[in-house]
């Protein structure tokens, strides 16, 4: 029975191919748009998540407060209010997983005939832990390297390529501001930071070496920044509070006075970036859904025309024994077939479009099974929803009137 009706629906659709095709086109475009937008949205979300994962999770950054000399105020991190002692004290706080004092800077590095200006990060081994940054070859320098300020370095991929070309940098000696350094390890690729900076264009050296031999330091033991990692995201507010209290106490800041340091929650910033991407992809999906809705209305429109055109046929069918539900089913099936086939084509086009976008622009796209399932069920639902009214109208026709209809 259903099979016979499917055959009839197919025949009815074949009788007016152009119209069937145009009706289908509404669904094709709707579903295609939804799939494409969802793929791009999910791709963007995934890319953001990767960036966050590369940055490291549950991170705070502590910056020294600004200084003011002769009316000229330095920016945050300009002063030297934070000390290695502060960092050590913070590492004793409950919930703190890793603490890494950082002395950053940019300078020229030289190897043979090559030279390159890159970012130098003077820090301790826990920095790599906090940022979950591995070395792909060689070793990470140790705390004893930090204590004795040895001239060793870890090099990122971009910096290595510019300095060493195709040579393997491991074990090579190069110079930072005339001081020779030995490459102890090469860093894993991190890619772009959220601000677009190339995180692989960097060289990591022991904190003390950076302070004493590269950048120099006005005050022994002071640092520009401290990176702090907590065990979980949930305890970050608590750690933020205890850290602030601790530093105010250590820096002897009285009640009512401003902090002489800045505390930033990097994870919160990253989360808000992720959230805005999520909202963007929802928005894209919502806009695409509108075209799906328009496609559905197109189906309803054509089905209504079809019912009117075939009034006499409906009368004949009723006269030879079709029940109301037979007529209902016949027209409903037509609407569903149109939307499901349209959906299928739209799915292929949407996936094709997503792959094309990826190939042409390099934008990350993710075609997930869930988006395919959602698109398909929405299409079927649209077919039933918008096909029902015309089908119901057909089924409710009076057989005598329908038979007389010219």
């Amino acid at each position, binding site marked *: *029975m259903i*099979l*016979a*009706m499917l055959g*009839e629906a197919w*025949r*009815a659709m074949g*009788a007016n191919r152009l119209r069937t095709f145009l009706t289908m086109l509404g669904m094709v475009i709707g579903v295609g748009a939804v799939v494409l937008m969802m793929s791009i949205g999910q791709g963007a979300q995934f890319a953001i998540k990767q960036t966050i994962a590369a940055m490291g999770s549950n991170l705070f950054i502590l910056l020294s407060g600004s200084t003011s000399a002769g009316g000229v105020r330095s920016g945050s991190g300009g002063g030297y209010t934070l000390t290695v002692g502060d960092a050590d004290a913070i590492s004793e706080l409950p919930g703190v997983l890793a603490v890494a004092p950082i002395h950053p800077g940019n300078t020229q590095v030289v190897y043979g005939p090559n030279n390159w200006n890159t970012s130098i990060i003077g820090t301790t081994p826990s920095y790599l832990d906090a940022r979950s940054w591995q070395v792909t070859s060689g070793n990470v320098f140790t705390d004893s390297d930090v204590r004795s300020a040895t001239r060793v370095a870890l090099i990122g991929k971009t910096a290595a390529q510019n300095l060493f070309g195709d040579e393997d940098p491991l074990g090579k000696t190069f110079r930072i501001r005339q001081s020779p350094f030995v490459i102890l390890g090469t860093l894993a690729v991190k890619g772009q930071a959220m601000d677009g900076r190339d995180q692989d264009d960097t060289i990591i050296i022991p904190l003390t070496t950076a302070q004493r031999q590269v950048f120099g330091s006005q005050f022994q033991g002071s640092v520009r920044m401290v990176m702090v990692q907590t065990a979980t995201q949930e305890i970050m507010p608590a750690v933020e509070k205890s850290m602030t209290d601790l530093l105010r106490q250590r820096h002897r800041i009285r009640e009512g006075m401003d902090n002489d340091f800045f505390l930033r929650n990097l994870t919160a910033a990253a989360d808000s970036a992720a959230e805005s991407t999520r909202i963007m992809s929802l928005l894209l999906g919502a806009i695409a859904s509108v075209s799906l809705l328009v496609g559905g209305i197109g189906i309803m429109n054509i089905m209504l025309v079809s019912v009117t055109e075939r009034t*006499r*046929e409906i009368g*004949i*069918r*009723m*006269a*030879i*024994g*079709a*029940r*109301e*539900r*037979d007529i209902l089913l016949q027209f409903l099936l037509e609407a569903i077939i149109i939307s499901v086939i349209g959906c299928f084509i739209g799915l292929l086009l949407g996936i094709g479009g997503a792959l094309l976008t990826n190939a042409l622009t390099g934008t990350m796209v993710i075609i997930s099974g869930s988006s395919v399932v959602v698109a398909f069920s929405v299409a079927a639902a649209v077919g039933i929803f918008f096909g029902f009214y015309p089908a119901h109208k057909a089924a409710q026709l009076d*057989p*005598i009137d329908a*038979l007389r209809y010219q």
Partner: protein
Amino acid sequence: MPSIQMSDAVIRIEDLHKSYETSAGLFPALKQVNLSIASGEFVAIMGPSGSGKSTFMNILGCLDKPSTGRYFLDGRSVADLGKDELALLRNRTIGFVFQGYNLLQRMSLLDNIALPLIYCGVEREERQHRAHDLLTKVGLGNYSGSMPNKISGGQQQRVAIARALVNRPRLILADEPTGNLDSQTGKEIMTLFEELNHEGITIVLVTHEEDIASHAKRQVRFFDGRIVSDHASQHSGALA
């Protein structure tokens, strides 16, 4: 006039009235109609246009319901039946033949004939088989794949008759079945009806042509919504 036993009456109508709502008020189309048609009869319903014979046929065919009065089809009171049961009656008990053939243009002749079987859930093979048998019976066995618009009016009407027969109905209702045909083709169609009647199928046909009506065994005349005459045809014995 044939005497009719109530028990074997295919159609029994008692005191039937039918009126329509019009802008000018209630219009009575049928007034106090009483009629019994026994199994195996061949009845021609005649009358000028507007006499109520089409309304009467619609009620006989369970496409319309009487305003008052009783209609028993095959012993069942039609007024008590729901829409689905009426559809089932139209499917199983009644076969319709229309003036305009009313074949579905998109389907082959075979599929047209088999269409009523879809609505009572007969399997595809059985449908094809029965449709082909009937197409052969009406003399169009070689045309099974043809489309309705490729054959003549007389041939289309034969296909329509085959469709009416496909579910082995007890009753055939034909509304001006020869109205669109020339007299020779009309005669052939009437011969087909006579053969079917001979096989025991009850036939009720509406016509306004005397020589078509003369093929029937009994003639019922309507005028102004009432039956004005009801008698056996003079020629009825010729073929029966």
